[in-house]
């Protein structure tokens, strides 16, 4: 308690205006024996913005930045969509991330998956995400879970998450995820891609959006089966998903409730469908 008080005094004394420079953030962490995340929360609660977020500030206020930091977001799938989603959530400053994926990097991932490099081939995707997040934003904690999501393990894994982000590549598993999110009363931000095309929607608790989107028999075949995925489509759809997460965390704007965006990058069209 006294440590926190001393740390707060230190932060207020060393702030430049209401910005907390990185070097003082790091010093406070070592000097007072606090994690980078604890210092970040203390700063935000004291009305200080860690200077790394200064270009957010016309968009996101200090109190909203605190809400983002206090948020816990699970990303299910760490491939094409997941990599970009994790990167953006970590830079946005979401305090707790949980990344779920059973796979290791393979050569055919290198065209698009953000954390895949030749050196990482054969290594778990969640491990790469873990390292990357520590590197780019040490105030953020990422919990790497190397397993295949299912209805059986889903409750334990997603327990405590405020928002879940769909970055899966399987329609049947998506439907299980949507069911688990509804039972846990957690909003699910859905995204899917294939070739030049993608879609985004947000399912709030009680809604059946995913079941409506994927209402055909289980032999359903998405466009990605024939087209694969180029580098830019996951980046576009991941960014739209992160914008949804950000809005849900700060309670601003109009999320994609009961509607889905259909994105066509070949003809540059975005169309809204009701659900």
């Amino acid at each position: 308690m006294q440590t926190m008080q001393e740390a707060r005094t230190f932060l207020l004394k060393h702030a430049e205006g209401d910005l907390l420079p990185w070097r003082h953030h790091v010093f406070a962490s070592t000097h007072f024996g606090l994690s980078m995340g604890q210092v970040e929360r203390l700063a935000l609660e004291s009305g200080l913005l860690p200077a790394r977020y200064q270009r957010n500030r016309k968009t996101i206020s200090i109190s909203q930045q605190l809400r983002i930091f206090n948020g816990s977001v699970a990303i299910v799938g760490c491939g094409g969509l997941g990599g970009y989603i994790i990167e953006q959530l970590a830079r946005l400053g979401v305090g707790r991330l949980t990344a779920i994926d059973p796979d290791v990097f393979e050569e055919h991932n290198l065209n698009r998956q953000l954390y895949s490099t030749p050196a990482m081939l054969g290594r778990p995707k969640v491990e790469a995400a873990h390292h990357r997040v520590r590197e780019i934003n040490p105030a953020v904690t990422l919990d790497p879970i190397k397993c295949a999501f299912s209805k059986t393990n889903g409750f334990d894994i997603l327990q405590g998450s405020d928002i879940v982000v769909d970055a899966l590549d399987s329609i049947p598993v998506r439907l299980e995820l949507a069911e688990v999110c509804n039972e846990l009363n957690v909003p699910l931000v859905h995204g899917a891609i294939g070739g030049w095309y993608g879609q985004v929607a947000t399912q709030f608790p009680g809604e059946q959006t995913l079941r409506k989107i994927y209402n055909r028999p289980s032999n359903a075949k998405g466009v990605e089966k024939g087209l694969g995925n180029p580098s830019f489509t996951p980046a576009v759809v991941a960014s739209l998903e992160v914008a949804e997460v950000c809005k849900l965390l700060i309670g601003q704007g109009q999320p994609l409730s009961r509607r889905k965006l259909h994105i066509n990058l070949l003809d540059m069209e975005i169309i809204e469908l009701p659900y």
Partner: protein
Amino acid sequence: MKVKVKLFATFREGRFGEELREYTAGTTVGDVLKELNLPLEEIGATLINHRHVEEDQPLQDGDNLSIFPLVGGG
């Protein structure tokens, strides 16, 4: 009767984006899918005038029918 058929994403390849087409009374959404050789397991959504419809839905003169493929990758 005349129906405006709009195809989206991959369904445009080798077909069309939007076309005003002539159908006989009683034609259903499923008939159009069959005519255009669009396999059921690849269909993501079918809408008439912005409302979701099933394959057995009959078309009316002046309808706008939109057909979207399924997207499921990540």
